[in-house]
């Protein structure tokens, strides 16, 4: 029932204040956008962990991938008098404002992925840069091993200019590629809007202009899936039992839709990385520690989490199955889905 209530608030985007129990810790969680399965899963794990380990109640308000909406959500949480706030915001400037407002109200706040430029609150820091770099390395090694005579040409779909997406995802990926192929060239970088259909349309144009593109990075799985759909429409998107024929595609998040393609030996989408469970748990643990006075609420502290890299060549199917179960509440069988 509690989950149902949480989802009802989530689905409507309403900020109806439930009666805040006086003897119970109440945690406010503001995800980046509940349109993505990654953030839907993190909300579920967050609420479960908070209740199971701390008996805490969770209030969720969708940030809707918008700075104004996110800041309004923070203000709502403050006016409701929650005990602590977890914020995954779209930009570092707004995050600093949100942190200042929460601190002024005496409410502890923690940030995830996007940190405040003021650096004055604990921050959950998924180690995405390492995994993005690793994906660049693996993708390039596999391409060169199968196609040594074809120079590496990279195309990137991003969110259109988030500084930390560049720092954690696109720049380390390109650095990984160049560590193997120093002459590799980024021939196209466009905004995929985090969306599969838009990414498909844009990638069709990119591949038209640059048919020799052979490594594609989507800054989330939705964009990587759009790139794959575009490649397939052009008769590309293929591998021969995991051997690259046309290109290698990488994404970020590690959801079910991506995993099905990654472990399909004939698909060219082959790498991703992600972390849901540990991020959610770290948020809750940090918030409760601040509420209890075990952690200072106004000091910069990075709490690192591992963003696990998963690829066709180095991750077992059992490992991928476990990842989905732990991070996306996946209760099916990856093996069965692949055999259908």
């Amino acid at each position: 029932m509690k989950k149902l209530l949480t989802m009802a608030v989530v689905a409507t985007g309403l900020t109806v204040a439930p009666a805040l129990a006086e003897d119970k810790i109440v945690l406010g969680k503001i995800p980046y956008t509940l349109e993505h399965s990654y953030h839907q899963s993190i909300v579920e794990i967050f609420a479960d962990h908070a209740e199971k380990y701390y008996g805490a109640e969770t209030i969720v308000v969708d940030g809707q991938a918008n700075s104004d909406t996110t800041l309004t959500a923070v203000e709502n949480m403050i006016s409701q008098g929650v005990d602590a706030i977890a914020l995954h915001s779209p930009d570092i400037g707004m995050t600093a404002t949100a942190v200042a407002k929460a601190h002024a109200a005496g409410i502890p706040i923690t940030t995830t992925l996007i940190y405040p430029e003021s650096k004055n609150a604990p921050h959950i820091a998924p180690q995405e840069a390492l995994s993005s770099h690793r994906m660049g390395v693996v993708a390039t090694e596999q391409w060169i091993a199968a196609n040594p005579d074809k120079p590496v040409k990279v195309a990137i779909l991003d969110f259109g200019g988030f500084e930390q997406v560049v720092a954690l995802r696109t720049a380390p990926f390109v650095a990984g590629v160049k560590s193997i192929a120093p002459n590799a060239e980024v021939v196209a970088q466009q905004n995929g809007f985090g969306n599969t259909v838009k990414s498909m349309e844009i990638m069709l144009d990119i591949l038209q202009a640059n048919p020799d593109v052979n490594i594609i990075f989507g800054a989330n799985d939705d964009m990587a899936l759009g790139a794959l759909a575009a490649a397939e429409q052009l008769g590309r998107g293929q591998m021969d039992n995991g051997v690259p024929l046309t290109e290698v595609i990488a994404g970020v998040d590690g959801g079910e839709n991506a995993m099905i393609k990654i472990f399909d030996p004939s698909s060219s989408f082959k790498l991703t990385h992600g972390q849901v469970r540990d991020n959610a748990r770290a948020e809750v643990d940090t918030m409760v520690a601040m509420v209890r006075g075990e952690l200072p609420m106004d000091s910069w502290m990075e709490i690192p989490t591992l963003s696990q890299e998963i690829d066709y060549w180095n991750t077992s199917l059992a490992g991928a199955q476990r990842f989905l179960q732990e991070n996306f509440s996946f209760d099916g069988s990856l093996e069965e889905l692949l055999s259908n």
Partner: protein
Amino acid sequence: MKYLMHYLQTDMQKVILMGILAALMIGLSIASPNFLSITNFTNVLLKVAIIVIIASAANLLMITGNFDLSVGAVLAFSGILHAYMSKHGVPVELSILITLIVAMAWGGVNALTVSVLGINPVIATVGTLFIARGFAFLIARWDGGANIMMGLPRDFVDFGRDPVFGLVPLAIVVMVAAVAIFIFIEKRTALGRKAYAIGANLKSAKLSGINTVGIVALLYVLVGLFAGLSGVLQTSRVGLASPTVGKGLEFDVIVAIILGGTSMLGGVGSTFGMVLGALVVGFTANGMVLLGIPFYYQTIAYGVILIGTLLLSQKFGTRAKA
């Protein structure tokens, strides 16, 4: 004389659009060696197909002086509903049929609120937009996720991807058919003539005995039908149904219609002009990516092209009036 002036204005807009289109094609052919190819033109047509299919119906609706801002949400809802039913055992053909009927029902809601109850189309269709988008998210949640991709039957994707007679993608065939149907309606049928009459002067149309409520209601239902069909086509082609698709599509549709010379006040416009408007937008977007122009400049360019084209047509339209 008034109709002659309207005709000249609309025609001048088409001439300007054809000039811009020709300039774009010549410029891009010189600037990008990959522009002039069947694959690239197919890509552009696929990109504008969804806009043109919906705009074919929405254009005639706007000629009556009404418009529909819910088309993107109805497209998303239809895609999700079709995917949900197909995944859960409903044969693809039956699923498409049910989806189209439900899409027409969304159009029926708009018809009821705007045409029968007389609510402002902006308010009424934005209301439908939110409700349809909300249901799209709910259906995705019922399926257990943020979108529907896994477990879709093979013929679900085949429908959108298999070319007709092995040659032309289905979306392009449907686009051509939709344009042909609405050019025919516009030029040769009582529905077309009455739509222009309603847009030109609603009171006169009523006094002339035209069933204005029925005509506008019918067009809203047709817009819903075409938005639903577009949702089915797009979902099948991409192989994924997401409740987030089609955001902003209503503006793409309106931009194509207005660029094509249709007046938001009604009474003026043509399907052919709308197609030209959509092609200008489609080739501009294609060209900017082919040339590697960063996203930020692309956004500015869209605005400049829209305002520039409208200013040009206004200037020549004024001359025509003088």
